[in-house]
């Protein structure tokens, strides 16, 4: 099994850290993983995307031409990556960030209103974990337990009290993702 994923949005949305937690969770399951970021000099507001590959076999190229799954969190990212999803692949998009939804008929399209849910839950910073929950619902690339273990491993100790909130966010994402 190899899952080739692109996660794309604005800097500050947690794109890179979501990818990192996914990669770390894969690592904890003994899988081969590669996390390849692409972003500009800005810390916030610029475009940011990350390619995450989780595989049972060694990963060749960290740079890909097309993807099994594209997670797109803003309109420019959708326009860039919709054509690059493999036929039969998946797009997950956030309803708040995307005005014109994807139109391809040969792929599976899922909508997740993660930004709205994050605002409702008053947990705006867990936006990316809600999206991750959505991904794990439709493609269980890694187990949720591995994600929690990855959070424990990657978050500084002083932030460990936030892990239950992150778990809540992941489970929320699993609930609210809908097929279009």
């Amino acid at each position, binding site marked *: 099994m190899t899952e080739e994923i692109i996660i794309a949005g604005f800097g500050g949305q947690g794109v890179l850290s979501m990818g*990192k937690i996914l*990669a*770390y969770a894969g*690592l904890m399951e003994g899988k*081969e*993983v*590669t*996390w*390849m*970021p*692409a972003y500009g*000099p800005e810390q916030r507001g610029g475009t940011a995307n990350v390619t995450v590959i989780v595989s049972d076999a060694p*990963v*060749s*190229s*960290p*740079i*890909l*031409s*097309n993807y099994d799954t594209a997670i797109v969190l803003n309109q420019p990212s959708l326009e860039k990556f919709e054509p690059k999803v493999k036929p039969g692949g998946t797009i997950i998009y956030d309803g708040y960030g995307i005005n014109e939804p994807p139109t391809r008929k040969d792929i599976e399209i899922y909508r997740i209103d993660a930004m709205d849910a994050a605002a409702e839950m008053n947990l705006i910073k867990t936006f990316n974990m809600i999206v991750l929950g959505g991904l794990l619902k439709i493609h269980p690339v890694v187990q949720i337990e591995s994600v929690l273990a990855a959070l424990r491993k990657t978050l500084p100790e002083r932030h460990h009290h936030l892990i239950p909130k992150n778990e809540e966010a992941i489970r929320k994402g699993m609930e609210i993702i809908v097929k279009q």
Partner: protein
Amino acid sequence: MADQEITLMKGNEAIAHAAIRCGCDGYFGYPITPQSEVLETLAAEKPWETTGMVVLQAESEVSSINMVYGGACTGKKVMTSSSSPGVSLMQEGISYMAGAELPALIVNVMRGGPGLGTIQPSQSDYFQACKGGGHGDYHLIVLAPASVQEMADFVDLAFTLAFRYRNPAMILADGAIGQMMEKVVLPPFKPRRTEEEIIKECPWATTGRVGMRKPNIITSLELRSEEMEIINNRIQDKYRKIEESEVRYEEFMLEDAEYAIVAFGSAARIAKKSIEVARAQGIKVGLLRPITLWPFPVKEVCKLAGQVKGILSLEINAGQMVEDIRLAVEGRIPVRHFGRLGGIIPDPDEVVDALKRLF
């Protein structure tokens, strides 16, 4: 951290951890994207509190390389890291160290140029790394890692080769290898050498005249031409020895190949995926990955010319290594180049298209 723990980290972070673990005595550097995590990781790890390794942020790359020059004179294991524009600033010091025959490690995590260029990955410093860069007839030993694991492993290897030949070594990585995260098993801890061990290993070094031994003078200056020619000949003899003994490379799916891609670093990773795609379309292609860019695997490329119908040099630049491939092939088969510029990394499908278009 246990010695054999598998962890996830960036290539730049792996360089820093490996430096501490291989018994490095000093790091002198100045921040620049996309390699700043080397200095950041060293600052966070505080090795001066554990191994005693010095970590110093200098006021510029020119200072960094001259601090490395000074440290290297004393036989210490010293290093610096930077990215392309910063490495350009260091060229004078690098040439002096090559002339004074000093072991040191310089890491270049390349970004696109020329000039300040871009902060995105590139491989456009191949010429600078392999053909001199600074003035005078000299070579660096140049290692090109293609994974985060190799970023970690090549630190110790680079120091080993640098001390074996009393010559500066370079790890020539690029922004992609520096910034990407992969699984890595860090090398086991080696203690820093004691003063006695350094005196024994480096009888040439300025370690203090214990027992009033003959003074060791380290310089790249010799105004008498006859003497300077003798020094140059000795250095050239050393280079011939390195060319004979230290060539390293990897072969991938070359057994039945009709075409070959030659690529290093992140381009070699892309090439492997391209080869999977091309083979699924019936194109028999394999990869030769030079691990040492200098010494270049001349014999291996020459041999390849007797097997395949054509060679594609895949580089993230406008065509630099392709010149060395052509020299090795001696006109026997077509050698083409494909690359992207300005910080854009070619994707695997583009490479397959290039293969079809160029042959």
